[in-house]
Each structure stands twice: as C-alpha cells, then as structure tokens.
C-alpha cells in the first residue's frame, strides 16, 4: 500500500475483525499522546479512526472477517500533528455516498461519518487507483499562542 509520501512512522495491517479495533485505537492514542496531543485530542483521534474502520468492516467488507485494512501514520510538523491513512480493497463507492444522516433525524446509525468530520481537521475520502478506498485524515495540535511583542 504505497503512497507518494515518505515512509510512514508506523504502518499496521489488520484483519477486518471488530476485536482488532481496540488494539489499533490504543496504539494511535499512545502515539498521539507522545507527540503531545492532550487527552481529549487523543480520544477524538482514536474515535475518528475507530468509526472509519467500523465502516470499512461493515459497509466495505460486509462483515467478512478475513479481509485486510491498512493503517499508516505520519507525524507532521508545521503544524505539529498526525496524518493517518486508511486503505482497503473493498468494492469502490462514490465518495458522495459517504455521508451520514441528518443529525436531527434521530435514529440508530448514520453517525460515523459525521463524527469523523467533526473530530478531524482534514478528511479526504478517495478511490484508490489500484482498487479499494482510501481515507486520509489529519489532526493538528492547537498552535501555541505567542505574544506579538
């Protein structure tokens, strides 16, 4: 699963099983914490990635437990942050279809894509040239406020 960026700091491939999402969350939370994200931001990052992986397992792979999902992470500087790319080999869908329900129309489901958008600073879904879908998300650390003097 190559991209145009330099080698990721960390790349994980998991089988498409719900019980593997907690280990991935734990890893990314720890990574974000060590980079300097505060606890709330670490939690938000983990939740956004969890929602994306849940969607791939359910919608992309139709709950087939033997498919692959690739998660790559890069530390960003200027602004300091994390870029995470999630790749799958599921049937491609139109990016315009990847959207949740109206938030005021309360019913089970339809929240994941909303959460991803509200928790991350950059969200980009695309069809992978080689088949499958790709999601790139980025989250930045709040800039340190420096006095203009």
């Amino acid at each position, binding site marked *: 699963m190559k991209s145009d960026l330099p080698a990721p700091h960390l790349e994980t491939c998991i089988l498409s*099983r*719900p*019980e593997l*999402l*907690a280990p991935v*969350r734990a890893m990314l939370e720890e990574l974000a914490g060590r980079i300097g994200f505060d606890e*709330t931001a670490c*939690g*938000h990052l*983990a*939740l956004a990635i*969890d*929602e994306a992986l*849940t969607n791939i*397992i*359910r919608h992309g792979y139709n709950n087939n437990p033997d498919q692959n999902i690739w998660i790559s992470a890069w530390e960003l500087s200027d602004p300091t942050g994390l870029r995470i790319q999630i790749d799958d080999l599921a049937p491609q869908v139109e990016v315009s279809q990847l959207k949740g329900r109206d*938030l*005021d129309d*309360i*019913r*089970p*489901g339809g*929240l*994941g894509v*909303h*959460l991803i958008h*509200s*928790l991350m600073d950059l969200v980009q879904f695309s069809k992978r040239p080689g088949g499958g879908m790709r999601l790139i998300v980025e989250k930045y650390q709040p800039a340190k406020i420096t006095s203009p003097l």
Partner: protein
Amino acid sequence: MSRATELIVDIETLTDGFLLRPHGDVDMARSPAFRAKLTEALKNVPARLVVDLALVPYMDSCGLATLIEALQITRAQKIKLIVCNLSARVRSVFELSRLTTVLTVVDNHEQALLA
C-alpha cells in the same frame, strides 16, 4: 476471541425497574452484547431502565446506535430510559451526536432514580 466480544454488565433491581452497569469499552466488538443485555432487561417491561456508564471509558457510534434503539423501544412502551455517570470522553461523543437532546442524561445514580 471470547473476551473481546463479551461485555460484563452488572444488573441491579430497582423498586420500579433495573439498573445496568456495563464494564469497559462499548465498541463494534461489544455492542451486540450490550444490545442483548438491554433487550433482555426490556423484556420485563420495567417502569424505569437506568444505564450507568460509570465504568465505560469509551463508546463509539455502535454503542450510541444501541442506545437509540433502546430509546425507540422504551418510548413505544412508556418506559423511562435514563443514562447516567458519563465520563468527559463519553459525554463529548453524546454531544457531538446531539443525543443529549433526546436521551435523558443525568449526572449520577441518585438523579437517575428520581428523573
């Protein structure tokens, strides 16, 4: 991976219903178990069902969907559904999803028994 999908839920009998207290993250792996415990409790058509999230450090949209399903059942059957003891993290997921506007969310156990 048995433990990964299991969910321990304490059940307490109240004067007018039940209190359920799940232990641990409620995510895609564990929300089916969460749904099963809620469904079981709702079968008895109690007057009140309290879901105490004190021991849930993490909940994702699968957990929320399960609570919304429970809300739909309880509304139809005039059961009071009350959620309490949200950690800051879980509360922020509720708020982002606008669930605090439809679900009765209170701070603690005592308030849940009076709500």
